Each structure stands twice: as structure tokens, then as C-alpha cells.
């Protein structure tokens, strides 16, 4: 059995009447990079706070590295590194001093702490700025210092709450690369929350989609699409050309081709608009479609298989949410 780093069962948190996290169950395996994806206010941060025992859950249980957080928060904090959203440092201390302080709070002796801090600073690329006061750091540097701050205690699990917020695209790429590299190298489990789809898509092994305090779907990004879009996962777009001058001169009329397309195994619906068609299907029928078209005496201008990205998943959910809201009104 694969070891579980984080196990959440039936977690619920209410603020007055507002349910921030609603009966959440989730488990994350050791060494995995898990992305928690959701819009602002979905309850991602609240879930993370409960993982660390920084706020009490109303019901349900959280186990991190097999330890119950509510009961033994200190043991959990010893193994978990947490980078809060919009992390703050002591501005009048240098980056190195900030790190040494945190290391010493983890019961490291000064000299050992300094050594560890220097190593980590080298790893996150802040070695040159180590003696500068943190107030002079740029946003990207602070974020990297935050990562160093998380790694210095040699955690088994790191939890990053919106770590890429406010970074420029290049900074985001560097930062994400750094996370992946370090976590793979050290075998650290990563829980990464964000509302940016592409970043999650870029680094995460598995994704949980979080809306209104509920986990709507979880799994690999490809399987997430299957879960969300019921059956017809594949969309194939193409444009038909004729070998002849005019389409009407063709041996078989286009409508006939479309009818045949519809009869193909797995195809749900084909729509034709001038020379372009869109086929929605249960499985990948690209090869069959192209053969059919060519055999019918037509040429293919282009044929592309559209895969669902997180964007589509996201929008799908927002639309559903909107519908849900409208119904309620």
C-alpha cells in the first residue's frame, strides 16, 4: 500500500452560517505534487489552515504523516513546511538571519542553523543577497526566501498557499521549476494551492478542483476531464476540401458524408458549417474520420483533436455554478 502523506476525512468548517469547507475527504500520497485548484474564497486556505492546526475544524479529522493534527499540532508542524499566502519576514533582518531564526525555532543549534541556511540559500539562488535586509528584496526573492524558509526544517510535506501570486510569468516559471526540482530531489510531498490553471497543469501530478468548500473532482488532469464532461470527452475539428473545383461536383454529397460520420462507432454528434465540421465523440475517432473523408473522395485541409485543458474544466464549473445560482434565484 502506498503511504499517505495527507489524509482528510469528512472535514467541515463553518463561519457562522457560511460553510467554508464542506465535508471534504482527500488523500495525498507520499512524494506526490498535488494541486488544489479553485477560485478565490473556495476554502483552499481554510483547508490548509486546518491541516496545520492553525484553526479548528468543526468536524472531521486530518492526518498528516499519520499524525492527527488537532491532537498533536507540534508533531505535525515539525514535519510540515508551510508557506502562507503573502508571506512576511522580519524586514530589518537579512534573509540569512530570518532563516537562522526559523531554523533555531526548530531546535537547531546556531552553527548548524547557519550552515543549513547557507545551503538552502544557495539552492534557491539567493546566496548573493543573503546579507541584504529583506525589505530590499523583490517579490520574487521574497517568495524564494519563503521556499527556503519552508525547506530549512527538512520537511516531509510542504504546503504552499498561492505561492505564485504576484510573480511575473518568468518568475512563476522559475519558482515552479524550483519546487518541482527540489521536491523530486528530496522526495517531498507538495500540496500546492492556486487559482491559476496553467501553473497547476504545469507541475502537479494530481489535481483537486475545489469550489464552494467542496471537492468537485480529483485526479490526474486527463481523468479530471473525463469525470467532468460525462461521456463525450473528445472533440475533433476539421475542414474539408474537394479535389474537384466545386464541392457540388463530388461523387458523394457532403451531407451523406456527415451522415456516415454520425454512424461511426462512438461519435455522438457531428455539426457541419460550410466546409468545417466539429465531431463530438466518446473515444478518439480521428483515424476513422480521416479515412472516411478521404475514401469519400474529399481532401482534408486540417484535422485537429481538441484536448481539454484546465481552462475548460474551470469554465465548465463556473457555468454550472452560475446555473445553480440562477436556479436558486
Amino acid at each position, binding site marked *: 500500500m502506498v503511504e499517505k502523506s495527507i489524509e482528510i476525512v469528512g472535514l467541515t468548517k463553518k463561519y457562522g452560517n457560511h460553510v467554508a469547507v464542506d465535508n471534504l475527504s482527500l488523500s495525498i500520497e507520499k512524494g506526490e505534487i498535488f494541486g488544489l485548484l479553485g477560485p478565490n474564497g473556495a476554502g483552499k486556505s481554510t483547508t490548509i489552515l486546518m491541516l496545520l492546526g*492553525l484553526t479548528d475544524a468543526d468536524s472531521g479529522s486530518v492526518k498528516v504523516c499519520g499524525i492527527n493534527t488537532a491532537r498533536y499540532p507540534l508533531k505535525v*508542524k*515539525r514535519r510540515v513546511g508551510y508557506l502562507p499566502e*503573502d508571506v512576511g*519576514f522580519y*524586514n530589518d533582518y537579512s534573509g540569512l538571519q530570518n532563516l537562522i531564526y526559523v531554523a*533555531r*525555532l*526548530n531546535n537547531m543549534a546556531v552553527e548548524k542553523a547557519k550552515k543549513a541556511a547557507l545551503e538552502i540559500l544557495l539552492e534557491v539562488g539567493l546566496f548573493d543577497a543573503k546579507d541584504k535586509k529583506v525589505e530590499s528584496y523583490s517579490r520574487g526573492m521574497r517568495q524564494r526566501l519563503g521556499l527556503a524558509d519552508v525547506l530549512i*526544517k527538512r520537511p516531509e510535506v510542504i504546503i504552499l498557499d498561492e505561492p505564485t501570486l504576484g510573480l511575473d510569468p518568468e518568475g512563476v516559471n522559475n519558482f515552479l521549476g524550483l519546487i518541482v526540482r527540489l521536491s523530486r530531489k528530496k522526495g517531498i510531498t507538495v500540496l500546492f494551492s492556486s487559482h491559476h490553471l496553467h501553473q497547476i497543469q504545469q507541475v502537479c501530478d494530481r489535481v483537486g478542483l475545489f469550489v464552494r468548500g467542496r471537492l468537485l473532482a480529483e485526479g490526474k488532469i486527463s481523468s479530471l476531464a473525463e469525470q467532468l464532461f460525462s461521456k463525450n470527452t473528445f472533440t475533433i475539428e476539421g475542414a474539408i476540401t474537394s479535389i474537384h473545383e466545386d464541392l457540388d461536383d463530388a461523387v458523394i454529397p457532403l451531407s451523406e458524408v456527415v451522415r456516415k460520420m454520425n454512424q461511426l462507432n462512438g461519435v455522438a454528434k457531428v455539426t457541419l458549417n460550410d466546409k468545417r465540421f466539429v465531431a463530438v465523440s466518446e473515444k478518439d475517432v480521428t483515424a476513422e474520420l480521416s479515412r472516411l473523408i478521404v475514401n469519400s473522395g474529399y481532401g482534408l485541409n486540417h484535422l485537429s483533436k481538441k484536448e481539454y485543458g484546465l481552462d475548460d474544466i474551470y469554465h465548465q464549473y463556473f457555468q454550472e455554478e452560475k446555473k445553480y445560482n440562477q436556479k436558486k434565484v
Partner: protein
Amino acid sequence: MGMSKLTGIKFPQWTVILKSFPVLRKSSDENKLHLSPFQVMVQKEIADHIRNWRFLILFAIILLACTGTLFSTLTDSLKTLGSDTSENTFFFLNLFTKSDGTLPSFFVFVGFLGPLFGIGLGFDAISSEQNRGTLSRIMAQPVPRDYILNAKFLAGIIVIGVMLFSLSFLVMGTGLIALGIPPTAEEFLRIIVYTLLSIVYVSFWLNLSILFSVRFRQPATSALTGIAVWLFFTIFYPLIVNLIVKGFEPSKYAAPNAIYIYKKLKFYLVQIMPNELFDEITSAILVPSVRSLGPLTMEQIQGAIPGSLPLAQSVLLVWPQVTGLLALTLLCFLFSYLIFMKREIRSRG
């Protein structure tokens, strides 16, 4: 040396030489350098206080006020210190309590500026960590949540203690040079007890302002609330008490019993004021001839011989006041604890 800010200790070059001796190195590694997380936090807080402009300014004000008083007392020493024959035996205590009238005396300054000092050290203790976003980072470390509260409090007390003791010793030392006679053991002990109790007093204000810093997110709100409480007790509460007791004021020709009850009421009403408690403590400890704090009946006064009390008796006299101050301090601490321990720690705001 980059390390000095965090350790708070600057290691001179010769420590490097010491480290080459294995025996010495071992002891220095274990005793000096490896502090528990809590000690590390206290150390950092103390370092922060001492390097803070706010602290330096407050300290400068108190130092200036006290040296000013000291000099004005000493220049006039023969007249002021020797004027009261019954207290002639306590030269050193007079240094703390007497002045020639141009400036208030030392203990008045401590009583007046002490609360400001306490409020100044504590009013942004927790809220500043919260606003800087460091609170959630520290709370994600394996330290119990109350460590941060305790560390802030303990660091404040240590700083206040060091400051008040150095001021007291400064006054004593100057007195020693100027008067040319050493203090008696009793005087010395009285001054030590007085200093310890003023630490308790200032730590009450420190705790109160820490409570406000836990409760209010904005440091300005917390500072103003602290100062408001201080103003209320020093200015408005006495006025209110006067208004209340005015209604009960007996006539000049009332029975002694009625006057006694009236005086007693007045006395009890001011007992919840921390500054009043401290004033009573100061007067009983620094003026040995003070034999009672509340009103006395004629029977109680009858047959009493005016004279000074021994230290133990003076301490006994102010024991209720000391207990009251400690209780108020603990109450503030308890409330900060209650609010803070159950709080949800979000990154900012």
C-alpha cells in the same frame, strides 16, 4: 558579524581562539549557543526592543527626567534631605522621594512614565507580527502557540527590569558619591523591593497593552486604547470618584463613625486604580514612617508612637496592594491568552 543580531551577543575575535580548545568549545556550544526555541524567541524580542527607536526614545526621556531630578535634589541636598529630622536616618530613600520643588521626585517620574513605557513596549506586540505576515510563519514552526505571547511578555519584563534596576542603581551610586555615606542594609533592601514592585507595576501596563495588541489589528488603535485607559485612571477616574463621594459627604459635625465610613468608602473606591495601588506601595516602601494607608479610627491611632516601621512590616502593609496589582496583571495575561489561543491565524488580516 552577521550573526550578532540574532544571537544578541557579539563574539569577539578571541572566541575563535577559544574554540580551538576542545574542552572550552564543548561547553560554549552546549551552554551558550544552543538555546531552546523559547529562549531564542525571548532573545530575539529583547534584541528587537533594544534596537528599537521607540525604546531608545522612551528610555532617554526617563533617563533625562531622573537625572534632572537627581541633580536638582543633590544641589539642594543639605536643605531638602536634612530638613525633616524624623527621617534623617534615611538619606538614601530621600533621594527617591524628596525634591526641592522645581522637578517632581524620582518615584513620581517612575510612576508617571512607567505606564507609558509599558504601553510603548507592548502595544504592537502581536498585531505587528500579524500585519507583517510573520505570525503565521512563526506559528507554522513547531513551537506551542503561547510561546510567542510568553516570549513577548518575558522579553518586555526583562527589558523593563534591566532599565528600572539600572536607574535605581544610578540614583544610589550618584547619592553615594554626593553624600559620601553608603546606604544602610535596610535602605538598600527597600530600594530593591521598590524596584521589584515597580517592575510589577510596569508589567501590568505591558500586559494590558499586549492584550490590546492581541485584540486590535491596528497598532494605532491598540496604542490609543492603552493610553486612554491610562488617562482614564490618572485623570478621569479620580474625578468620577469625587463626584460619587460628594453625595455622601457628611457634615463637619457628623459622628466620627460616619466620617470614618465616608473616608473608608473613598479609600476603597480608588483601590481599583493601578496607579493608586502603586502610589500606596511606593509611599509605604520608600517612606518607612508611613504606618497605614487607609483611614484609621481614633481608637486605632490612640497610643501609637510615631516612628518608622521595619521593612517586613512595610511590605506587610502593602501586601494587599501588591496582590491587587499582580491580580490585575494576571487578569490581562489571562484574557490575552484566551483570545489568542483560539484565534485563527491567517497570513495577514
